């Protein structure tokens, strides 16, 4: 199955290039221009990344999160949810940067090619930050009553956790 995955990036690159050439785009100049913007963007986010790695690592290494979720171990095991994935499952809807650090921590602890490491990467990649986007988008236009928006968003995040679990067992068991 991983062979299918390996086709995606070359396929996108190939398709974009051929399409752009047919549209008479100067692809070399476009690439360099975009790359220049990319480097500025990555420098711009550096301080935010550092802030998050710093703050989140202190919380993770204190053992607070692990100890907290250990309390729920019996319940989680009943549903076959590994307790180790929980810190990621709860931070993912709140902040993308925070959950990114949690994902790295899981990969560091359990190995990048372990099933937990894979599950973490899928979970991080397959969904976006519900609460952050909700407060940003609704806040920008002054919405105060969000109705069922949060409920719909969080239910979807729950499904993503279950999907990550199922897919890892399906593809890599």
């Amino acid at each position: 199955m991983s062979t299918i995955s390996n086709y995606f990036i070359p396929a996108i690159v190939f398709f974009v290039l051929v399409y752009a050439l047919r549209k008479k785009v100067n692809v070399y100049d476009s690439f360099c221009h975009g790359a220049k913007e990319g480097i500025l963007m990555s420098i711009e986010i550096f301080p935010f990344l550092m802030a998050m790695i710093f703050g989140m690592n202190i919380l993770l290494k204190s053992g607070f999160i692990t100890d907290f979720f250990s309390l729920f171990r019996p319940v989680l095991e009943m549903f076959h949810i590994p307790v180790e994935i929980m810190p990621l499952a709860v931070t993912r809807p709140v902040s993308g940067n925070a959950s990114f650090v949690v994902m790295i921590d899981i990969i560091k602890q359990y190995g990048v090619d372990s099933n937990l490491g894979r599950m973490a990467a899928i979970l991080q990649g397959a969904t976006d930050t519900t609460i952050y986007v909700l407060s940003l988008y609704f806040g920008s236009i002054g919405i105060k009553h969000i109705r069922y928006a949060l409920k719909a968003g969080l239910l979807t995040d729950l499904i993503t956790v279950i999907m990550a679990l199922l897919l890892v067992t399906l593809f890599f068991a």
Partner: protein
Amino acid sequence: MMNKIWASFIIVGIVYGFLTGKMDIMNQEIIASGNETLNLFMVSAPLMVLWSGIMQIAKDARLLEKLAKMLRPIFKVIFPDLDEKDEALEYIASNLTINMLGIHNASTPFGLKAMKALQEKNPKKDTASRSMITFLVLNTSGVTLIATDILAIRMMYGSQNPTELIFPTIIATVVNTCFALLVDRFLYRRSVKREHH
């Protein structure tokens, strides 16, 4: 919001670490986190720069507009309250296509414009309209084809095959997006019923 969350991470961490006798580890962690950020930057930045370059080619070839146009017929089903020519749909399409290609920072301006356009047609200005909520769940369920930052991390920690998760991730994101739309519709119907009672 970020202000309080970030501060509480650090305060809770240090206090709990102190109580459980992990001050040595905390000390090391604080000193090491600067270096860790730099290491991460060194792996993820080149990939991000490369991908921005490729996406710029797509932008200059107007491929994003083309993809957005292809989404139109699907939008008729997803947003029954909106007219097919609504300008909000254009912004929503741009927002989602950019997200799909994994350039999240670039998609936010379109998302905000879409919300503003939806707000103009919203009868109750302080209450989220049906289309707004649908757009929001569509956005947060997040259809992403290539997540370069995750790829970079998998490379950094020496994965045997860093890209092997692209296909499973796409399945997960497509399924959760379909589910998001179903939940959205179900909750909308329920809220309408309640208002009638």
